[in-house]
């Protein structure tokens, strides 16, 4: 019988863990996290040390931690231009399914390898270092679904079936660019008609650079127009009904005054006043995303 006692203890602990503040028994939700494409160099490709004129591999692990799929992502790799250093076929494209498609806690992972040759050192050089640089560009979409208590009565805001809050902070929804806050307020149009106004704050929570969805590859091929930097197309709907949003495209440009944050406003269609109710605000953010990185290799002379 002591086994059953232990079993009961386990069940108790198991339920207790569900009360933990840091984790929960949430049902799987792909719309979480602030990552989408995560790029990392393989541990030994490239190696920390290579030798003059010797071929080596550069490997990338590319994983989609975002909610939605990535299509036509583009990676390009460069190295120092001296001593015959080169990378064969330095670019590649790839697709990666997101968490929503894989029904797992991360999306697809792929690996890309590039063949490179270390530079030949001059006779008097014992060692030097070379720089590997890589650029990654991909188009992406963040879909934030925010459950809001909608209050249509500006004169009696506390009435209704849910508790109204004028400002709601929003958790990341499975992409680097996210809605971080929604401010809701009814705008009276007549004595019994209102429009709902949503002031939506968007922020780049990732470590990359945002650029327009249509020109997502331009930073990787060097053809970028700075006017396309930071551009995010926005749209929103309330329980499936499209909202009118101004502006339809926002700019997330990093600066000291504006740390990659932008605000836009959406209005619902006119509606009759009624008691408060819960509804789902869906915000779509479409953008291109740019990641870059580098790694130094030490190149030793063969002697």
């Amino acid at each position: 019988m002591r086994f059953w006692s232990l079993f009961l203890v386990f069940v108790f602990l198991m339920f207790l863990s569900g009360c933990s503040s840091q984790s929960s028994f949430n049902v799987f939700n792909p719309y979480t996290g602030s990552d989408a494409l995560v790029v990392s160099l393989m541990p030994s490709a490239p190696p920390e040390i290579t030798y003059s004129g010797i071929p080596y591999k550069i490997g990338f692990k590319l994983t989609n931690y975002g909610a939605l799929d990535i299509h036509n992502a583009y990676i390009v790799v460069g190295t120092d231009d001296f001593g015959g250093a080169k990378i064969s076929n330095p670019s590649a494209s790839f697709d990666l399914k997101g968490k929503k498609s894989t029904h797992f806690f991360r999306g697809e992972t792929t690996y890309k390898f590039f063949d490179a040759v270390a530079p030949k050192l001059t006779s008097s050089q014992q060692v030097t270092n070379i720089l590997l640089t890589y650029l990654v560009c991909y188009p992406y979409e963040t879909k934030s679904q925010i459950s809001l208590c909608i209050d249509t009565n500006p004169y009696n805001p506390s009435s209704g079936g849910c508790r109204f809050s004028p400002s709601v902070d929003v958790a990341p929804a499975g992409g680097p660019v996210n809605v971080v806050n929604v401010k809701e307020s009814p705008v009276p149009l007549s004595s019994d008609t209102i429009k709902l106004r949503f002031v939506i704050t968007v922020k780049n929570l990732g470590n990359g650079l945002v650029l327009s969805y249509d020109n997502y590859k331009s930073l990787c091929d060097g053809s970028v127009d700075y006017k396309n930097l930071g551009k995010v197309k926005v749209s929103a709907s309330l329980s499936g009904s499209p909202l009118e949003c101004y502006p339809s495209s926002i700019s997330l440009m990093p600066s000291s005054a504006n740390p990659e944050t932008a605000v836009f406003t959406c209005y619902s269609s006119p509606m009759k006043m009624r008691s408060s109710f819960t509804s789902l605000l869906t915000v779509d953010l479409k953008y291109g995303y740019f990641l870059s990185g580098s790694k130094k290799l030490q190149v030793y002379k063969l002697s």
Partner: protein
Amino acid sequence: MVDESNVNLNSQEDPNREGDTQETAPKPSGGRAIKNFIVSGLGKVGSHSELIKTVFKWVFVVGMFVASIFVFLSHNWSVASILLIISLIVFKLSKNSFLRTLSLIFIFASLAILASYISSPVIDAFSHKNTPTPWQDTTHDKLARGVHTYNTKFAKLVKSSREYIQHQVDCAEGNCPMGESEGPQVGMMLSTPQLMYAHHVLVGDPLDFSSTLTGINLDLYPDVVVYPFCSVEGETSFEGVNFNVSPKKIYMSDLSNGVVPIMCNAVAIPSTYLMNTIETGVRFNFTTTSDLRLVIMKSTLRNALESVYGTNFLPFVFEINSSQVAYYNDGPINLGMRISQMPLAARAKENSAFLIFALNNQWYSANGAILKINYMNISLPDGLVLIPKKPYCPFVEKGNGVYSLDPSFKLNSPVSSVLSFFCGIKVSKFNSQFPVWTPHIDVSVNYEYELNSSNDIPIYKPDESNRPYSYDGSSSFADQNFSKDCSSLNIDPNNLPPSKYVKQFTSSLYAQQIQRGVEDGASKYGLPGFSKVQMEALLLGIMVMETGVGSNPAADGDGDGIPDHIAGCTGCSSGYNNVYKDIVNAAKALKWNYEDNCKNYSAYPSRLDCALHAYNKGPKADPNDKTNRDIYRPTVKAAMNQWINYLCSSANSGGVSK
């Protein structure tokens, strides 16, 4: 009603409990209560109890599996640890297959959770760590694994050079102060030159001095040859003095982590008074190379990134230090380079960017300096153009992107600190398919470098007014071989010089100079038919006659043990006399008399008697002048025999040069 089959499950664990279950059921334990509950529930099903029991069991198993999945999802290592411990205990103790299966499920589930906290390529595929940036993720991987892949074939090389190379790389990245590119890791040092024999030197003395050359890690440059040199500089120039320098050349690899003495011997010293500085040094040609990575971007990309991050955006985008200097230097010169604009725009206008590079003397503390630049080349990749302009950028284009230092460029003086250049640079063609072009600019400079060390020494001026024979260092007899063989001589070991003379010869203050003077005088000015031992003994005999080797009766005004007559200064009263040279001059004078003044010696018993008489009375001496004639020559010859006995005695065989 109780299901017997279920009750019997317990009876397997503890047979005594079967009766308890049936007879004392009112107070079951917790586990048994659940079991009873389940069993009682099943019992109500009647004839379908087995089926229901099985279904119930599997529903229970699946339910617990689902529960374990939830635990897994919670991704809480503490819960997983507790789950693992409990499951292991249950699995170990239970004999019930149902419970064991269940515990196994929990074990695997908890292991999966715990494993996710360990970084490995396999497990990483099943767990996600929030890695915010690509480069941070790379660092994480590197640190987590902690082991870098090295090619063992080169491990030894890497290890031996690691410290130096790391220092070099650090410096290359701009992390070391100017002039400390290699710091104490590589270098050489010359000690202060010191006289080898005498406490002081007189004009006309042999000038022998030495210093030591110390090297540190110079085996990095095995092909570089170092040439030592010696010199003397004074108030009146010593120009034209030649030195025998030993060794003639030193390979840096031989010098590495060791000490090599550099010995200098003056072949000929002018007999003029000088205050002097003796100097030892080394010269060598060395090539220092350096290269600078440029970051050149397509203008659109550069402008775009600049608009986002500001001018200094490279650290944000690529973690590159915009102000990095050249990252490879070696040898006595740190060849630093920098570009004024980083990154460079592909369409950079002329004069919009400058290449600044400087030769920093990093062995200045060892008194080193660049004497001459033999050549200096700048190599630019195709697409970059240098804009030479004197005087800041005295280079001429040689083609294929190579620019050489203008041949008319001359150093005004040795470079002991910094020599810098300032050249415009522009991008004529963006020569890369990658939007970020990172070519290298190579600079190679070959120069003559000198390290030296000096010491002031007093060289005293002798009174030369009455010096009968000047020493010019030349001798047709210098290479004559003298026999040291005493076997043909009649040795009388009982007839030796007085002990006070022997003491002067062997252990007095001037013993070393006396010995060298006698040996060199005998070697250079030996008389025909005299063995070396005989010649040495003859010179010592003259000294006995003249002074008693430092004692009366001969005049020895300066008390150096050398007769003033031999020294050529009858009035010597100060310390300008020179023991060594006095004896050599005596030998020279004797020989001159023997060869030139005694060609006809019929008036004398022998040619030696003639020479000794002429030495005593002068070259024009009358053979019939009997003053001291019958004293001087016999005394010298008697003393000579005593010295032969001494030098040829068993304890001293081999003469002075033993």
